[in-house]
């Protein structure tokens, strides 16, 4: 267990530490890093967390392991559910979503944390790259207590000055009141976690700001791969790597097939 953590494992541990006991955790599609993170947090420090998969709600803190499912649409992943009440009522209780934490990716993300899942190109009826559409991200990011942007790669094609289309509003055109002015009640994006670094949003302008660099990543790497001017603080720490306990738990109780160790 002493071989070093991969970048994806570092990302998962960063996210898991962000989660508080009692959070209700929902992960967007095709995001294995937060899929691992929510399970790890549940085991490590979250006996009152709820995992929300495919509309089922689970608390599986009592299990020896909470392995990733073979593939996302497998209904066995909700085998230990305590309720399926979200099925058919998934959006009928957004009033209670202040406890909910969401994780989302994007084709494009801009400096205010707005996200595009629609596509790339000028003509929406003939996009140059047609994306998978917005899923439930507009509604979820509008109402959840907080959410995390998680990117599978950090490049200037993804982190852009302005999204071609906005699927989910982060801090809109900037400013701590920007969501409120639009009439969007939720807490907004808290961090953006990529394979290079952790970023947050400045207090007043709500512009994306570097928080820490992952081990082995330089500031120039980040700048060269970010399509907009990132706010750079005076002191830039290295992202805290997983502890022995965290890494062992991640590998032996969650990521049994080593999905985050490959690639």
């Amino acid at each position, binding site marked *: 267990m002493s071989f070093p953590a991969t970048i994806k494992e570092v990302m998962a541990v960063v996210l898991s530490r962000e989660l508080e*006991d009692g959070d209700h955790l929902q992960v967007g599609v095709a995001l294995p890093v937060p899929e691992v993170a929510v399970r790890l947090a549940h085991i*490590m*420090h979250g*006996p*009152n967390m*709820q995992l929300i998969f495919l509309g*089922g*709600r689970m*608390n599986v*803190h009592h299990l020896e392991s909470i392995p990733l499912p073979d593939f996302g649409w497998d209904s066995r992943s*909700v085998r*230990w*559910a*305590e*309720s*399926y*009440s979200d099925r058919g*009522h998934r*959006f*009928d*209780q*957004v*009033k*209670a*979503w202040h406890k909910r934490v969401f994780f989302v990716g994007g084709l494009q993300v801009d400096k205010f944390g707005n996200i595009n899942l629609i596509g790339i190109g000028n003509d929406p009826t003939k996009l140059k790259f047609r994306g998978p559409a917005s899923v439930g991200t507009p509604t979820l990011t509008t*109402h959840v207590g907080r959410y995390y942007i998680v990117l599978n790669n950090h490049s200037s094609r993804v982190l852009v000055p302005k999204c071609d289309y906005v699927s989910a509003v982060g801090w809109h055109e900037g400013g701590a009141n920007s969501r409120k002015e639009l009439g969007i*009640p939720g807490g907004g994006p808290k961090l953006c976690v990529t394979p290079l670094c952790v970023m947050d949003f400045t207090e007043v302008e709500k512009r994306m700001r570097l928080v820490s660099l992952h081990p082995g990543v330089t500031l120039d790497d980040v700048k060269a791969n970010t399509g907009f001017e990132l706010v750079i603080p005076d002191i830039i720490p290295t992202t805290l790597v997983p502890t022995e306990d965290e890494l062992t738990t991640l590998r032996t109780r969650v990521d049994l097939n080593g999905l985050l160790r490959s690639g």
Partner: protein
Amino acid sequence: MLNQVRESSVLPEEKAGQWVKSGMTIAIGEPAPMGLLRWIIRNKITDLTVIGSGLALDYLIAGGCVRKVITYYAGSPDIAVMPAFRSEAENGTLEVWECEEGILTSGLEAAGKGLPFMPWRGGVGTSLPDINADLKVIRDPIGGEVLIAVPAINIDITLLHASISDSYGNVQHCRGTGWLDMFLYRAADRVIVQVEKIVSNEEIRSKPWETTISNADAIVLSPYGAHPFYSRGYYVQDQEHIRDYLEAITTAYSDGNRDKKDGYFEKHCNQFQSHAEYLDAIGTRHLISLSEY
């Protein structure tokens, strides 16, 4: 490790009951959470706005707790119009937010969905928007049809009665929930659920599709807690007890004789320190005779 124990949602009736403060907006589900309603009357909580229907609502009005009702139906198969509701509404001492089932559920849905309003067609052409100024007649922004805009109906605390739950607030109603229960649950900041029985978490997880409410804020163990009303799958209405209530309250209001009303509540509610004492007074033999089968 900071916290390695899953927290229980089970509270004694008096702890959960103390969440209800005078002036709040509360909702009453079906079956009726009578144990909690008796606690509210006994503890002289007043000026409540109550969303409910039928005789359980009347009980709370007669008990002196209610300033305003949001109801679509204040009758029951036992009596055309409930006596306390009727008398206090006619006197003007009880405010009625006039509505109907679809309008009520629309307002509750709006609250659950975090919306300021929902449109509804039922009620167009009726007197409801004339009587209830909160209901706005609008034209729909797509095709110009006339509809009613119902404002969100937000609830401080919803009180429900159900069959079983585990100790973590996962509730399973027997044979479905009451018609409004899920709407009332979703529109509320907090929900307290009385249950006939608390079961293991494993039992809940063996049939998660039967879970009607997850994350109830408080579970109160309250066997026979809907008495004198029914609890689906457990017991039927206590017709005799309900007849006594209707007679006492109708007489008290028609005589203007407050003592009769107070006497009824002293005998059937206030003298008891707990739900268990109430059940003792009803008696096991009588309770068993009400079994649904």
